[in-house]
């Protein structure tokens, strides 16, 4: 018996060393462990043995079976791994070939900058409100302290659609008027109103008959220019970098008094003077002021009790400055090739 086992082992070692493929392994399994396999045959005449003999033979054959199974299995794993590696090698690809494009859409540049301002404003407690683009002369001009024949209307040559009562709004300020009028309880107001605006301008690199404003309005008690300046600081630093300085210059808008131009220190030269700031070190980015008493009174807010500030930016101007765009028509031609540049997180 032991001799038999020994000869099986010897033969197995020989067989194993000659086995090269998974098919050979299968044959090996049949030869040793099959129904008529060498190991199986060790127990072929078990029924003729005594109980003690059975024990010995049983134990021995079991050990042999385990041994053979393990050895074959070891080899099998080895061959399988080899074959897999061979297969994987044959599957090697050229990783330098171009990718399959996964398309995600991009936003319009203007929308990007508007949302930046909106999100900032929301974080400061402002609501984002929109209004109609075909607007009443009453809201676009008259209640904003711009009566008919007011010379300041010249600066905003307007598209009328119906006599002199209905027009394509020339500014987003009528949204402020609507908000104040519609607030029947006359409670404090904090809004920003982004939107499309229209003026009779011939389109060229710096003029557009359609453009976009972002206006803000805050109505409360004892509001000052210093409050406006602080608010502007926050916006300027968010859009143009935390090291921006700001300044106010006196200006004129019919619906604010005092009115100011809002300047930032030049982000290009830091204030030394360059092409972008035309040598002044400062760049004007918007207009603002303390809400005119006539506007408050026109909208049912008693100007003896309420004060407020309003500010406005041209979204195109902000974007042109921020991204170095030189032609305002860029925003309206929608050249999809631009997207490669813009479809990513900004600094």
């Amino acid at each position: 018996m032991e001799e038999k086992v020994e000869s099986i082992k010897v033969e197995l070692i020989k067989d194993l060393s000659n086995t090269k493929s998974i098919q050979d392994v299968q044959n090996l399994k049949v030869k040793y462990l099959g129904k008529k396999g060498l190991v199986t045959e060790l127990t072929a005449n078990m029924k003729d043995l005594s109980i003690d003999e059975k024990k010995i033979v049983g134990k021995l054959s079991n050990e042999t079976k385990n041994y053979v199974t393990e050895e074959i299995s070891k080899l099998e794993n080895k061959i399988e791994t080899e074959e897999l590696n061979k297969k994987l090698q044959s599957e090697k690809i050229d990783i330098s070939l171009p990718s399959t494009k996964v398309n995600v859409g991009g936003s319009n540049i203007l929308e990007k900058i508007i949302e930046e301002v909106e999100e900032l404003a929301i974080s400061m407690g402002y609501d984002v409100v929109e209004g109609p683009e075909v607007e009443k002369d009453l809201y676009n001009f008259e209640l904003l302290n711009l009566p008919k024949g007011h010379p300041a209307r010249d600066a905003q040559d307007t598209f009328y659609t119906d006599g002199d009562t209905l027009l394509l709004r020339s500014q987003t300020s009528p949204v402020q008027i609507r908000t104040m009028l519609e607030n029947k309880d006359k409670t404090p107001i904090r809004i920003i109103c982004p939107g499309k605006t229209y003026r009779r301008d011939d389109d060229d690199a710096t003029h557009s008959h359609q453009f976009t404003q972002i206006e803000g309005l805050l109505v409360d008690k004892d509001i000052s220019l210093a409050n406006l300046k602080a608010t502007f600081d926050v916006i300027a630093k968010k859009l143009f970098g935390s090291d921006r300085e700001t300044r106010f210059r006196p200006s004129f808008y019919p619906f604010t008094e005092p009115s100011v131009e809002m300047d930032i220190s030049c982000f290009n030269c830091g204030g030394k003077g360059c092409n972008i700031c035309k040598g002044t070190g400062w760049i004007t980015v918007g207009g603002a002021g303390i809400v005119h008493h006539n506007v408050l009174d026109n909208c049912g807010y008693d100007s003896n009790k309420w004060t407020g500030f309003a500010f406005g930016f041209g979204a195109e101007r902000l974007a042109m400055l921020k991204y170095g765009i030189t032609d305002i028509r860029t925003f309206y031609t929608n050249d999809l090739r631009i997207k490669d540049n813009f479809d990513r997180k900004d600094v």
Partner: protein
Amino acid sequence: MAISMNWVKEYVDLDDVDLKELATKITNAGVNVEHVTQNNLNNLVIGEVLECEDIPETHLHKCLVDVGTDKRQIVCGANNVTKGIKVIVSLPGAILPGGFEIKASTIRGYESNGMICALSELGLEEDTPENHAKGICVLPENAKVGEDVVKYMGLDDTIYELDLNPNRNIDCTNHIGFSYEVASVLGKKVTLPDISTKPIKDSIKKHFSLEVATPNCTLYNAKMVIGVKIKESPDFIKHRLIAAGMRPINNVVDISNYVMLEFGQPLHFFDKDKLGDKILVRMAGDNEGIVTLDKKYRELFSEDIVITDGEKPVCIAGVMGGENTEVDENTKNILIESAIFNSYNVRYTSLRLDLRSEASLRYERGLNWEYTNMAIERACHLLEKYADGKVLSDTIVYDTIDKTVKIADVTLDDVNTTLGLSMKKSDVEKSLTNLGFEYTESKNKFTVTIPNRRLDVEPHKQDLIEEIGRLYGYDKIESVLPNIPDKAGNYIGAVAYRKLISKRLRSLGLNECRTYTLVSDEENNLFNYNKHEQIDLLRPMSSDKKTIRQTILPSLLKTYEYNKARNVKDIMIYEIANTYFNKDEEETKIAILMKGDYLNNSWSSISSKVDFYLIKGILENLLDYLGFRNRYQLEAKEIDGIHPGISAEILLDREPIGFIGRVHPTITKDDVYVLEISMNKFYDKKIKPIKFKEISKYPSIVKDLAFIINKDITSGEVVDTIRKAGGKLLTNIEVFDVYTGENVKPDEKSIAYSLTFSDPTRTLSDEEVMQIFNKIIEEVEKKHNAILRDK
């Protein structure tokens, strides 16, 4: 507006003032000095022609000129150059107007070391044929050889080019008004010019009567000057007019313009002898007309104010004079008008006639009656002095001006609260004094009188605060955030909804566009779907921007063409914008255009070309995302501009919200797919809240089947039948094959479905599924005349 600082010096002491620094100070106080320019004519000297010889066979002359430092040869082409005269010489290095640089050169073989100049070549006269014929400028004999010409001629001026805001367009468009601003900034006083005259005994009242028959003329002054001699203006007037951008003509016309630039009051001079002895100011009649100074006939309307001689118009008030009373070279006697007309009428008339001028703009913006009265005296003073005129005594005056003095109160506290500053009483006092605003003060309350010249300052504390603040300096304001309660900000109304849609569409690979609201008729009518009455502009700038669009798709098609022309192959775009359908309502529309490969790889065969089913997938994805699953469907419908066989109306809750399809090949041959829906139709619809739904733990059973049906029967109809017959346990239906061709008759098609049955509470038995399955087959066969296809 160009301001001559030499002129300003007449009214404000500017000795030892750096004009560049002053410009910055003025700008910082709110009046924008956009440019500061010097009259930078360098290398111009006075020369004396010592010798002058003709150069044979040319019009040229060879001259020897003494320029002080040396004697040099200069070739000159002017026919009035001659020995012994004093001339203006530009030496090499001089840059004349237009950037023309003088260099030493050789002309026809003769050396030329400079140029003898005409006034037009120096920009001091207009370059007209007449001025050209005058030749070079001959200076008086006493001119000193070698002296700087700019100094000699009083041209050493500094010009401020102002970019004025509409409020300061009134007082800073004249030199006196601007001088007050200069004085405010410097803390100095203004000295007004001499307006005295030596009137003769004869009174205008003997020669003239005035009647004003319209409330649109509130002030009318008339004075008479006789015996004027028309000639050239004195140099200082010419130089100042040129500096301010006006062309000198003759002494009388120049004086009228000079006074306008000085006081801001436009004047009109009539030839008294042509005018007659009466003036009637009235509104024009409907059938009236006048030939104006530019020799054009102008039809008049009842909105126009006219000056008449009692019968016929002689001047359109504030706009332009009539040819019939024009001052010409033979004029001897002048009637001067200095008046205030209703700004609205002047604006209306000048706009209608396209005759807006320096004068009409000043009437439009408003005039200070004090200056109206002073200007006429000033004109008389100048005519007396520079046109040999004799001024008749008395002024004919019509005056209904409200002369109420503008007074307002402001407290120190008001000032500091509004500006966010801590000014002292003395600071406010200083600002008011510098502004030239008279005031009294008691217990920190200032009662301020606003001078008439500041038409823009209303008697209200806010106006005073602005004036005080701008002079004090906004640079002194320190930022302080408003002391108001914190609150959460929100998107109001449909804004957030629109942004949600926008984000979803971007995540689906579509690029956001922004196109123009104004389009052409043709574009607006391209897709004639639910059109409303068109809203046109009253005065469009061009035919391609004349109407307010009711559909965004034509603009997206334009964007498509633009990108295609630039070799962009795969174009997936959308825009959400307001469109208009009547006076009060705006409709927010969502438009999508898709063309090309939705997904692709340039070198392998992977691609997903956009077709109807892909854009339909985008639509469904969006509507499902918005919570409308199972509430919408497409209904085949022909729509203008859309391929009739690939076109559908989109229904939500059985109401149409828009359309989808392939653009009609007559519009573009490319297979471009579009859809447009109206956000107004659904943004406020109620949707179900999100609830967690248990995924069935029990296995589902999938069964496939295929039917042959008539090709006009839609899959949708079959699916409806299957769904109805399948009941609750049929949880999903998928189309996995559509086949026409071999083994199927030409008018038939085969559609294969994969049906999933499941129950969240138990395992289904084969028998019950088979029972439903057979019922489905039976129903489809019966209802659609379908034949079950063998496997």
